[in-house]
């Protein structure tokens, strides 16, 4: 488990749905095929409205400059497409901080191990701007705004923690002897 995630943040609003994270026209790409996995990364958050001054991944690039996404409530609502957390992970996102997550998106983050879904009660997306540096400490459950040193707490991962710590649903089931070793 990576304990500290540090980097620039990309700030979005409430209810960022899976059509904005990865629009449906790119769902023909199959995440388990390596070249298509990379391509999915290049389209991460391409469905955001044009009012966003900055693209999450610049045109012609596959990777983002923002390893942390900061959203509001209900991040990842909409479809069950695992392409959503995968496109973020493929683009180089390591964590999404939000006030709440939609259930399937949250679960898919954990099942795939692509990004850490980090919940906080603080409306961080109103306190910082895209480009600000953050430092997430997963062990101590805090997020620090590097610029001014302000720190806020994040919520416990709860019951899924055991699954994340094992490294996903397959590793969890193997550890507990539910399915055979690979």
């Amino acid at each position, binding site marked *: 488990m990576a304990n500290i995630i540090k980097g620039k943040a990309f700030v979005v609003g409430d209810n960022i749905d899976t*059509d904005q994270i990865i629009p449906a026209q790119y769902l*023909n790409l199959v995440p388990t095929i390596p070249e298509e996995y990379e391509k999915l990364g290049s389209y991460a958050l391409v469905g955001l409205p044009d009012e966003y001054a900055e693209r999450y991944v610049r045109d012609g690039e596959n990777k983002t400059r923002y390893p942390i996404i900061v959203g509001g409530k209900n991040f990842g609502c909409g479809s069950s497409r695992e392409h959503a957390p995968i496109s973020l992970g493929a683009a180089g996102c390591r964590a999404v901080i939000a006030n709440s997550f939609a259930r399937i998106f949250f679960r898919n983050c954990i099942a795939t191990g692509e990004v850490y879904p980090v919940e906080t009660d603080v409306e961080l997306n109103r306190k910082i701007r895209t480009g600000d540096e953050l430092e997430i400490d997963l062990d101590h459950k805090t997020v620090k705004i590097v610029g001014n040193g302000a720190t806020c707490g994040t919520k416990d991962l709860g019951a899924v923690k055991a699954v994340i710590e094992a490294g996903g649903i397959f590793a969890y089931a193997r550890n507990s002897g539910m399915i055979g070793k690979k």
Partner: protein
Amino acid sequence: MGMTITEKILANAAGRREVKPGENIWVSADVLMTHDVCGPGTIGVFKREFGNDARVWNREGVVIIPDHYIFTEDRICHRNVDTLRKFVKEQGLPYFYDPADETYSGVCHVTLPEKGHIRPGEVLFGTDSHTCTHGALGMFATGIGNTDAGFVMGTGKLLIKVPPTVKFIIDGVFPKGVTAKDVILKIIGDIGVDGATYCAMEFAGTAIEGLSIEERMTICNMAIEAGGKNGIIAPDAKTVEYVRSRTGKAFNCFRSDTAAVYQAVYEYRAENFVPVVALPYSPDNVKAAASAGKVKLDRSYIGSCTGGKLTDFMFAAEVLKGRKVCIDTYIVPATAEVADALNKVRLDGKTLSELFVEAGCLEPAPPSCAACLGGPVDTFGRCSNAEVCVSTTNRNFPGRMGSKDSRTILASPYTAAASAVTGYLTDPRKYLK
């Protein structure tokens, strides 16, 4: 202690006498459904984790329904369906609805019940968020991602958290012009797009009992739009009759105990419902159709798992018979069975297809998801510019039906049809006797 129907089904699937909300339990799946968008990825995960020669846990349990990207020239989409074909052959799966032959059906969530794959009391996992539709027949059904689906494919099991239940009781009789779509939109408008996050949404009351099976499906279909894990309606005589006519397999009917514990209970009177719409860009941006203001439209779209069933077209036909539409109006039956019915079911001597074409609608399209989720650029009905579209589908997020500049307004088939006649958002009741 009393249990809800959702808790009873999950307890049964976990081999336990009792379960409580918040508990993590391993449940056995009866059916795993996947389609052309998530199937190839699920198969990829399955092979990566269980090996190239692995076999699915139960051949009868895996149902594969290509439906999203079927009528397109896109090469990758065709490759994906080929991946499914190869897997079906290699595993000897009996339930595959191949676009290349007469077994093709169309939208997964209408196909599943039509073909007898939905049975009360069972557990269905599907790689599609609208899998919650099937709670309408008294089963536990929920959407999952490819990784979880790969796990179910190999083991027949999944670790899930028991959701708390929120109950919606609607008593009385719905007024003319109000459909299940209006009911679920109103509820989503009241509680918000995250109002039932993680919860089971149970619908009950005499008004719900009065609805047809297809209308009950429309209600449960959109549980996910309120963040719900599953939607559910207790099975009754109508459910049993519907299921019996489609499968010989035995099933179990569960009901909530009177002493069941709910996270919240909402009560409604059916008489108070009116036709509503959800304006861009959120399914909870709900207004009465009559007071949504003067909204000019470019097109009307009647289709999808939410609004492309036979009942939905019957509603639309009631409004469109003998009238003319003045904007592009798309008719997309969900499945081959629905498409077939459009050519057989008559209203005032005309088939529904004839009636739609006479009203000026575009020729009904072959069954599929089509423009419900935008899709490849050559998808039938896809919005490619700044169109404003009134639609019987379920989501109106930015870019949902194609271009980011387009706007989708969610409505019932009555409202979509009445609005097609006027070219503006219209309360359909003035066209209904």
